[in-house]
């Protein structure tokens, strides 16, 4: 058998390499997902432990750690929401606490919905007729579903804003976009929970655990 070069040496990523850097990308939010996938595949072919199975222990550790990093980087960056949350966290030095955040302008609707889903659960649990309540919950859910369906477009809009201020000297403008991203991500988290709550109430199940 030919002696294939098995010891195609690889260097470890510098300590603290972020996901964008690992994938050879600038810290921008608009990402060509197809190109990202092919970068991931190329890097996997280079770093994967299967390509270094018979190398020395040191090379095997580098292979393992590099592969774990690019795998996490790919998983995170290929999803727009995860990518945004990661960037916000990265830009704040790892201290961005993104909290679930109710959209303030929907305060009234939130109160009404909470009452209705509570009533529906109770009715379903006691076996009382619930068709009317069900219809009420579905109606009250409408604004939340609508808000949810507009999220992706709002995120795409912020992606454009962030990518238009790449220069670190534009600190204020960048901080403003980061704040908007943080709020939008928080709003989405809230909406996802509300929708899960609505769906489970319609099935007569208890409210899902807080995540």
């Amino acid at each position, binding site marked *: 058998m030919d002696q294939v070069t098995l010891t195609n040496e690889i260097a470890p990523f510098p300590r603290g390499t972020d996901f964008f850097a690992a994938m050879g990308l600038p810290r921008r939010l608009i990402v060509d997902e197809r190109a990202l996938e092919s970068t991931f595949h190329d890097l996997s072919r280079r770093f994967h432990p299967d390509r270094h*199975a018979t190398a020395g222990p040191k090379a095997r550790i580098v292979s*393992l750690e590099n*592969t774990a990093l690019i795998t*996490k980087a790919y998983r995170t960056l290929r999803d727009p929401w995860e990518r945004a949350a990661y960037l916000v966290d990265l830009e704040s030095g790892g201290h961005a606490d993104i909290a679930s955040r109710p959209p303030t302008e929907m305060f009234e609707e939130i109160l009404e919905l909470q009452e209705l889903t509570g009533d529906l659960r109770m009715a379903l649990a006691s076996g009382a007729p619930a068709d009317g309540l069900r219809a009420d919950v579905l109606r009250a859910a409408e604004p939340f579903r609508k808000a949810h369906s507009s999220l992706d477009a709002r995120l795409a809009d912020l992606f454009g804003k962030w990518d238009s201020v790449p220069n670190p000297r534009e600190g204020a403008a960048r901080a403003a976009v980061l704040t908007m991203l943080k709020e939008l991500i928080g709003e989405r988290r809230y909406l996802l929970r509300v929708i899960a709550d609505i769906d489970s109430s319609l099935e007569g199940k208890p409210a899902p655990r807080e995540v």
Partner: protein
Amino acid sequence: MSRIVGIDLGTTNSLVAVMTPGGPGVISRDGQAIVPSIVHFGPEGPAVGESARRFSTEDPENTVYSVKRLMGKSLEDAAPEQSLLPYKLGGAGSGVVRIQAGGREWTPPEISAFILRELKARAESALGEPITQAVITVPAYFNDAQRQATKDAGRIAGLDVLRLVNEPTAASLAYGLNRRKEATIAVYDFGGGTFDISILHLNDGIFEVKATAGDTHLGGDDIDRMLAEVFFREIEDAHGLRLKDSAEGLETVRLAAEGVKRALTDAGSAAVELTLPGGGAYERVLTRAEFNERARPIVERTLEPCRAALKDAGLDVFQVDEVVMVGGSTRVPLVRDMVADLFQRVPHTEVDPDQVVAIGAAVQADILSGGSADLLLLDVTPLSLGIETMGGAVEKIIFRNSTIPTSAMQDFTTGVDNQTAVDVHVLQGERELAKDCRSLARFQLRGIPPLPAGIPLVRVTFMLDANGILQVFAEEQRTGQQASVEVKPSYGLTENEVDRMVEESFEFAEEDIRARILVDTRVEAQAIAAAARARVRDFGYLLDVHEKAAIENAVAATDVACQGDNFALIRERMENLDAATRPFAERILNEAIRRELSGKTLEEATKEG
């Protein structure tokens, strides 16, 4: 560099395969590639495979089968199995179940090591070289403890397990689906004791697993047991005999049930005839329709994981381009029908479902040796990994279906001043509470510098390697000190225990491998020499003087080599002999054909000569 073999260590059957210049192939002995995963402990020592099989009715208490079901389990986990197994289990409270056979206790990795050693010996005698490295397949849904137990088994058998590969993923490699540039593949793997479903995306040689799901306690065995239960009940009703209570009865009926299942693969009905203790007889005809009706609930149980895997992969059935069937249980027509129904397409069954996993393991072994450079498997972890937090909840740090290798970092601190150690409990599973998940390991972070509470910051890296096995590293952040981590597996052997078993195992590897290869090679060489001698005697008239002398010399040289212990010399002379006789063999054939055409049989022709 010696070759890396691929091993399918199955619940019912095991095989070894290797990459050859002509492609991957299973290694056979006497035309048999399959080694039944059975170990018998008799007075003359352990027997493995086919030679152990007959003891499953003759000496059931000392005949261990389906040990894969016990890998990575404690006695408490294995308790439901006991009533169905003729051998006794022990090891209460130790975290690792013990099997009582041959007058002592064995752990499941030790039993599996006997099977691995047999496969290793077969590979060594077929390839004529020592084998020390292997790829071993495991069910995709195996947890950390089950994977670790498989690796331990390899070590005890003297094999360096370079990689554990998930069985369905291995199967997808064997199918050569990489001829397609891009496709989504579902691999349905229904074996003797386990069920797996994996959804893969293939893109330019990269096999990326999107999602996997399964049940490590669902297999063809369950169908056998279900049928056996029917027979037990009917025998008890008609004859008042409880065959289930004796190990022999249990085995006899189980084997009869398995036989009926197999017969119904091709036949529309099959009969069972059993002679009962006391001279009575039990006769029963089972139609395929009745079989299907009874087996349906078991096969149903495989469909839920299929739907779950599709959902996790974010796909619906119409987006699946190919469905591949793996495992002996996919021979059951009902299984094929139900899978075709679910995926709305005819599944692939071209590659022998018993061999496809081993062949895939050989391809993976080749990848590890630097061959098949265009292929790469990116697999996932089947179960989420979490840490127990205050109040017994679980915080997930790596989610199921994450591509491996992957890692997660978690910071820990102290609760009281000058605390120098922190306990960590790692779990595997999808549930919210620690008590509902599978405990993976407990460990203590030690050597933390004495500081006020909450000040030390120990950063722990949880690394899931390409085998799906957890490794833990820790570092104190404030001082940069490497905190020591000693992981104590909850259900598994410690490093020391495995070391001890490796040492013990040498006494069982009594047929020293070299001696074994020597014996096998000698037998082969003598057979070839004898055949050559017979040909020269019967067909000598076809040779000129020089040719005849060359063959006779080669035969004599082989005979001489066979007197000695030099394995390489025997092999060399045997090959020389083969080379000397090859043109002759062709001539015999041509001569035979010529004679045949002129109206004479081969026999008459030789007699004339």
